[in-house]
């Protein structure tokens, strides 16, 4: 279990996460949603141990994250940043293999497993510049999975992907959760969170305003309160769409 305990995070002297407590479970997809500037990415960075808590702490299986060695933390928590910002035009499989760095081995099996799980076999020798946005997103997720982390933390992994690629990546994340990994993702698209997450955390101005199953945490009342828009859910459960009221 990954847990935030009364967590406060400051960036550039501003409190971006304030007194937040939440528990994240293995085997589930937890979505973190909220308006721009609500502190979603900062919360994710703090959960990944990449941003220090000003107050409170993050616990990994009951131990404070700050008490783990950098290497232990890196093995347990895989972090996928928002922007696919790749400095060198390397082949897809070289990029995936970077996921083994915390283990200090080449982990052939894990790398091959990640390449297979994300259907990257035909792309493995292609340089990253020759991949589409959707293919690149799969390569970057495979990089995280190659490290065999207990936790997969991803910041807007679905942004900038078309619908088909969004659904395919979600399917991969669901497979991670089914295999026992904990998946925590920041999402902008409320419909994706409502339809695919097991649990949703709603943030506003760095504070947790809702935490529960998607149907409760993303109720029309909460959306009206947090985003300031009147909107209603249309369609069948599992395939709902959010329509703003005129």
């Amino acid at each position, binding site marked *: 279990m990954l847990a935030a305990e009364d967590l406060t995070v*400051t*960036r*550039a002297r501003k409190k971006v996460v304030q007194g937040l407590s939440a528990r994240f479970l293995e085997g589930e997809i937890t979505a973190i949603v909220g308006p721009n500037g609500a502190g979603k990415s900062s919360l994710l*960075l703090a959960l*990944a*141990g*990449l*941003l*220090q808590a000003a107050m409170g702490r993050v616990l990994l299986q009951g131990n404070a994250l700050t008490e783990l060695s*950098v*290497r232990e*933390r*890196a*093995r347990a*928590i*895989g*972090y*996928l*940043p928002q*922007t696919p*910002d*790749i*400095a*060198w*035009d*390397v*082949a897809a499989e*070289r*990029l995936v293999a*970077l*996921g083994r*760095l*915390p283990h200090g081995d080449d982990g052939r099996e894990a790398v091959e497993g990640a390449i297979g799980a994300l259907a990257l076999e035909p792309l493995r020798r292609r*340089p990253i510049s020759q991949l589409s946005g959707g293919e690149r997103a799969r390569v*970057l997720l495979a*990089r995280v999975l190659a*490290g065999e982390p207990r936790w997969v933390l991803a910041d807007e992994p679905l942004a900038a992907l078309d619908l088909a690629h969004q659904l395919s990546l979600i399917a991969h994340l669901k497979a991670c959760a089914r295999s026992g990994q904990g998946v925590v993702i920041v999402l902008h698209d409320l419909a994706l969170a409502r339809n695919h997450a097991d649990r949703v955390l709603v943030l506003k101005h760095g504070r947790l305003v809702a935490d529960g199953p998607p149907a409760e945490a993303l109720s029309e009342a909460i959306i009206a309160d947090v985003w300031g828009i009147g909107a209603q859910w249309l369609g069948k459960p599992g395939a709902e769409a959010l329509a703003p009221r005129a």
Partner: protein
Amino acid sequence: MRPGVNRASLVFAALLAVLVPLSLLAGRVWINPFDVAASGPNAAVILMELRLPRAVLAVVIGAGLGAAGAAMQGYLRNPLADPGLFGIAPMAALGAVASFWLGAWLPLPLQWSLPIMALAGAGLGMAGLALIAGRGVSDGAGAAGSGLALFTLAGLMIASLAGALTALAITLAPNAFALSQIVLWLNGALTDRSWAEVWLAAPLVGLGLGVLALTGRSLDALTLGEEAARSLGVDPARLLALLVAGVGLTVGASVAVAGIIGFVGLIVPHLVRPLTDRMPSSLMLPSALAGACLVLVADSAVRVLPLVTELRLGIALSLIGAPFFLWLLLRLRRGEV
């Protein structure tokens, strides 16, 4: 095959093995490899006391500059980074120039006060760079990319400060002879270098190369961006310290014995990159070997060129390097790199 030992390394190692003997034969006096004595009464002396130390020094300096360039480009995630741009080489040059000026007050002959003060300058530049840039990596609370931006700006500020002080030292030169010596020295060269310079530079460059080799995996992780690299267990403070020490030792020692030799650190990694898998760790060893080849060839060429006085190595490399830099910029603009 071990990481870092790749096809490109083997190619450049083989090339170097051919170039070193060729370089020993080339010069104002051409030496017949099959009959050294027939090449003149002093051929053996020329070979052992002039050409061999000069060739060894070219290899040592070229290897240091090539590897430093590869590491620097990896760290800054930018193929336009040159170790000379980031304060250490200009600080070493400032130290060397100061030795012309202060030489009279130092209890050392110029032959020793110059490299020692150049190393002191490089050390000062390293300390400044590490101190300022270290603030950017210590807290991890800044905006994304702020660490590298701070490093770049700190390096450029140190470089321009050192440049201004060097210019000041030149205008305040104690006499015309010192002035000409300073200007001549600033345009790096390997002319008339002896084994003494080799013994001074080789251990420092070797140590620097060893330190740079430790950065390979962290630089690879940095391919994914700063935050992803940290999530993979890269310690930014350790990486910065290793990088500054490695670049400082290699570049500082090079400037101390040969003056400013620009563009090697920029061109070499760029030429080598397409021959590798483009990961920074794969680039380090072949860049060291290719840098050694480039400086050796350039130094042999300036020795052979039929000019009244020998063309300075630093000038020759800049004459090649500047147009190359422009070409690289234009290619980058068209998105071909």
